[in-house]
């Protein structure tokens, strides 16, 4: 959701870090998107190709590392992967699990020359 301003943020962060390192080119960006983060990587890729033109990130490749959602039941402490149909704990049927993975959305690193 809101992939265009989000992609602009990614470009801005990447350019800031590249500038600090006196880089001439950004060749790759490594982005992590959790299963529960409401971002569509295809849309980010689409906007990237438009807005990175004429910057040192112009030919950079975007790499998306997806992190599966993981919940932890607060009743029996079982860790599990929620499915579309079922969010309750598969072991004890408890509700209100804590999200321990899957909400990540970050630029992890960039490769520069």
């Amino acid at each position, binding site marked *: *959701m809101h992939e265009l301003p989000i992609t602009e943020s990614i470009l801005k962060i990447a350019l800031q870090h590249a500038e600090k390192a006196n880089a001439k080119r950004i060749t790759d960006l490594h982005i992590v998107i959790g299963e*529960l983060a409401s971002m569509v990587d295809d849309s980010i890729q689409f906007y990237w190709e438009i807005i990175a033109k004429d910057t040192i990130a112009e030919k950079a490749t975007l790499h998306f590392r997806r992190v599966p959602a993981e919940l932890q039941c607060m009743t029996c402490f079982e860790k599990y992967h929620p499915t579309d149909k079922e*969010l309750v704990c598969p072991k004890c049927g408890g*509700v*209100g699990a804590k999200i321990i993975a899957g909400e990540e959305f970050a630029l992890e*690193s*960039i*490769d520069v020359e």
Partner: protein
Amino acid sequence: MPQNISVVENILNANDRLAEENRARIESAGVFSINIMASPGAGKTSLIEQTLPRLKDKLRVAAIDGDIATSIDSDRAAAAGALAAIQINTGGDCHLDAVMLHGALDKLDLTQFDLLIVENVGNLVCPANFKLGTHKTVLVASVPEGDDKPYKYPGTYRGVDVLVINKIDLLPYVNFKMDYFERGVQVLNPGVTTFPLSCTTGEGLDAWVEWLITNSQKA
């Protein structure tokens, strides 16, 4: 040979950082603040209109209203008793963000108020993803919208601190199964503070107003 530079920066960082700044500002003035979110027509403004007269002489309230266009909502808040009512027109943006709240806070002397009510743009999806810096988030669900909304909008229902269920006076007339609805909420957000009420009949409003007063006095 490319060199790898570690960045590890959350992409929504800028908004979250500004939200923290907003929060610090609100807190240092001793104000309690809420961010009310809902689909268009669920009853955000009606709730404010029914709440303000019940807070007269108890709390000094400022309202900040977000809409794509018009000052209809801030006018209603002012008419209902808000001592200050500021309208943010987003001009197209579908949610308020910390930057917009920051700008609106500049227009208020927060020391003159006890409670700040921010009414977000009518939208069940986006506002939940953009922290403003208020103490609590309040979602207004309404009976005619249907009982499957917690299942269809888990991101929104999971993150809110308070759930108002408005238009309970319409329960006899629509196909809304309260236990199905509540189960959907419980799975995502067990123990969320819930206020079933009707802005039309007044039923259930006292508990909601009491919650506001208690929290404002603590701030």
